[in-house]
């Protein structure tokens, strides 16, 4: 049951082989059992959850069920949900109860999905290891001494440990794809603007995008059908016709032009990871894909550009957390200025403060042109790299992350080495393109642990259906995606 696809669960529910309440309870029991160690969830409310499951059962009985009705989903704690504690992984919002529903939450609610709980994350989505969460680090289910990646580390661990049927994540520089890679699951960051950002606590507004994290591409296609769609409350939400993302899942791949950017296979990529990726590419060749060598010459610059633009936007986005209307307010202060400075110093963790300071610096008088403007100009060069590449190929393949999951604490004190985790994912956000990670195999550690490796698939704007097709075809001929970590059964 816990390893069933969403489609299989849907069938079981429809055929009344199991009720949503029973299914939900099973996951809640698993959460009780494993979460105290894994720490994937930071907010649970069994009462609300089971009430939703009960309502779903009624809906199924009435015959008005959708594909996701009754299916228990975990929500990243970046989405504001009415009545739920919504912390964004921060002490700043430790006592914040959502007064409204984010668009994504509402969409799942409308579809009849069950909200299992809110998942752990790097504070304000700033991190690649989930170690910046105020609510403690998350264990990688494949090796408990390692990180699950970040910032959607809680969602990734929850899916990997089968503590939910699927989960949501958000991705600003790789926050869905990198943890999906490190935890052995499928994660998709859609084209910017496909999923409304309303109610998703902003990190870097021009880059943030929500997407599904699940066991397979087929599951993600079903989630995409729920998550995407125009929302008038988000000015950057795109007005497009609704798509059925499952429509092309079973198309043959013969003739698909697959681009391999030489920069993604250069220095910096771990040899063991490279080997797994090369085997995956061989598999694509077998499926009939045509392999094309391409170049994304500005790849190296994506990190500096990102570490100007994202902190700049974040420094401004996080100004609203001032202790006036909600959130943490210091207990002792002398005056207004002191209240601001103490509340924010206490409420934010070290990495968040660093990024606010960097963002403040690059926007400050005299530096704007040299940093912010320059970064926006190079951002265009990076987007143009992809534009050129997609003249020669349909999708791009490469590694999601340069290495497999690293040990907790290993990079915690070295922000720059942590930032390099996102070398292959960031450019996709800067260009606003869709990017996906799917499990492509494992590497072995010296102590005999298997660590998953993610294959990244990058598509052109609005090409999610084709990417899911490419991923699904691979998942029909491999079983990496259905393997489970030891000790969670």
């Amino acid at each position, binding site marked *: 049951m816990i390893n069933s696809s969403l489609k299989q669960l849907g069938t079981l529910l429809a055929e009344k082989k199991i009720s949503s309440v029973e299914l939900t309870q099973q996951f809640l029991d698993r959460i009780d059992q494993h979460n105290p160690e894994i720490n994937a969830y930071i907010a649970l409310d069994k009462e609300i959850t089971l009430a939703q499951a009960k309502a779903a059962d009624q809906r199924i009985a009435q015959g008005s069920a959708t594909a996701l009705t009754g299916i228990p989903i975990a929500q990243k704690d970046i*989405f*504001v949900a009415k009545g739920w504690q*919504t912390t*964004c992984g921060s002490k700043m*919002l430790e006592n*914040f109860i959502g*007064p*409204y529903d*984010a668009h994504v939450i509402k969409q799942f609610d409308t579809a009849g999905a069950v909200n299992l709980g809110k998942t752990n994350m790097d504070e304000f989505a700033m991190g690649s290891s989930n170690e910046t969460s105020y609510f403690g680090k998350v264990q990688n289910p494949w090796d408990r001494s390692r990180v699950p990646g970040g910032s959607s580390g809680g969602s990734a661990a929850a899916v990997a440990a089968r503590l939910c049927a699927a989960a949501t994540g958000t991705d600003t520089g790789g926050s869905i794809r990198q943890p999906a890679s490190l935890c052995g699951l499928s994660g998709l960051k859609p084209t910017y603007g496909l999923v409304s*950002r*309303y*109610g*998703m*606590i*902003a990190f*870097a*507004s*021009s880059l943030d995008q929500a997407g599904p994290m699940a066991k397979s591409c087929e599951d993600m296609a079903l989630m995409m059908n729920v998550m995407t769609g125009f929302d*008038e*409350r*988000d*000015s*950057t939400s795109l007005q497009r016709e609704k798509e059925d993302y499952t429509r092309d899942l079973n198309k043959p791949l013969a003739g698909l032009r697959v681009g391999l950017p030489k920069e993604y296979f250069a220095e910096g990529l771990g040899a063991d990871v490279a080997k797994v990726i090369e085997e995956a590419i061989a598999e694509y060749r077998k499926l009939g894909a045509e392999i094309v060598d391409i170049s994304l010459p500005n790849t190296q610059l994506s990190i500096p550009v990102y570490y100007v633009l994202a902190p*700049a*936007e974040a*420094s*401004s986005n*996080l*100004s*609203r*957390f*001032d202790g*006036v*209307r*909600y959130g943490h307010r210091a207990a002792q202060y002398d005056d*207004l200025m002191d209240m*601001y400075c103490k509340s924010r110093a206490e409420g934010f963790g070290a990495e968040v403060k660093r990024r606010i300071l960097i963002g*403040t610096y690059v*926007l*400050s*008088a005299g530096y*704007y042109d040299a940093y*912010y403007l320059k970064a926006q100009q190079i951002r265009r060069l990076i987007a143009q790299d992809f534009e050129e590449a997609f003249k020669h190929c349909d999708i791009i393949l490469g590694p999601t992350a340069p290495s497999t999951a690293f040990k907790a604490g290993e990079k915690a004190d070295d922000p720059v080495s942590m930032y390099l985790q996102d070398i292959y994912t960031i450019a996709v956000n800067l260009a606003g393109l869709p990017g996906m990670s799917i499990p492509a195999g494992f590497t072995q550690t010296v102590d005999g642990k298997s660590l998953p490796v993610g294959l990244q698939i990058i598509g052109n704007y609005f090409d999610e259906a084709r990417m899911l097709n490419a991923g699904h075809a691979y998942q029909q001929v491999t079983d990496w995606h259905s393997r489970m970590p030891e000790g969670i059964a």
Partner: protein
Amino acid sequence: MEWEVVIGLETHTQLQTKSKIFSGSSIAFGAAPNTQASAVDIALPGVLPVLNKEAVQCAIKFGLAVDAEISPRSVFARKNYFYPDLPKGYQISQYELPVVGKGSLTIHVGASAGNENGYEKTINITRAHLEEDAGKSVHGASEGMSGIDLNRAGTPLLEIVTEPDMRSAAEAVAYAKKLHELVQWIGICDGNMQEGSFRCDVNVSVRKKGAEKLGTRREIKNLNSFRFMQQAIEYETRWQIETLEDGGTIQQATVLFNPDTGETKAMRSKEEANDYRYFPDPDLLPLQITASDIEAIKAVMPELPADMKARFEGEYSLSAYDAAALTASRGIADYFIATTAAFGGDAKIAANWVMGAVAAKLNEEGKDISASPVSPTALASLLKRIADNTISNKIAREVFEAMWAGEGDADHIIDKKGLKQVTDSGAIESIIDEVLAANAAMVEEFKAGKEKAFNALVGQAMKASKGKANPAQVNELLKKKLAS
């Protein structure tokens, strides 16, 4: 040493929309605190702005009214600073690319010493941009605390910035008044200064006459009456000149005007480094205004005061002075146009009445023309009775007073009070005969060549008729009698 004051204005006009610039909250004034503050207005985590169409249309109207460039593409930026009435920690405003570019407004500066007739001057407008208003801090809540009301936060503002083109408090006030009238004329702002709908920041600096370089300026914030503006500029100018003459220097500062003391004083809180870290708001896309958007607004724009003034001079042969007076406000102009239309006679007569009797009564009672108890149609029916000789101009004043007092329409009052003009020549003749008989001395004087005596006799005849005799007929018959 001769000094010259240099003044530029930044005016915040609250736009007359129904909802806020980035949210669906009402902007109605006077609601209980924070009851018109939505999730977007209080900046809850995760909320996003969506731009109000009407606010953009107001900006286009203003651009057209000051003959300005309207940017085909403008950008919203974030102005970052912390203040409790600024919920997001940044204000959404336009910085590098404002919606309205360079334009101008011609003002008339009233008579003063050395300028007996006053003069006209064109003030250059640098730009006008859309932005959101902040909330309000309410003092005197709990001891040592301030209360924050965010009902006003997100109210749409058009900030209108001039070049430093003004050279006296009088010019600054004339500009502010003209602008105040214009924004109401085109219907984008209610102009209510007490409620803060129209607020002026004035930049003042002084320099030696003839110097090219501008002096260091100080900005007087939030002036909400023209009288205070005049006082504040005059005080600030004197203060700056005295400071410089005493060997001091002027520090750039934001100052507040205290109406009680009549003095300006530097603010404490905003003095520190104002590094606003502007950058384009990633939550909003560039605002596009097409030629057809502009055409659509042009089609519904009211005739502008300057155009109307020219039309009055041409179409109605009014003097420049009269035309200017009648287009001083949209209310007056509308009243005049309605009166003229209903009257159908000589527009000059309507003009005289609107600027004369009507204006005097309004002034006397401190009323706006919209509150005039005599409607344009009522006034027109009175003017018709003058034109058809039912009553004289003088009697008409009496009828008008009664109309103002609510005694009914013109015909009713004329009838009730028996004010109808006497045009029966027999009746007039007998009055004249009586007057001639009673004033033999005057008749003699007239016959001796004193023309003035004739007017005196006319006056006597009119008096004897209680003003009701037709003056032209009195004149004619009297001449005849005296000649015989």
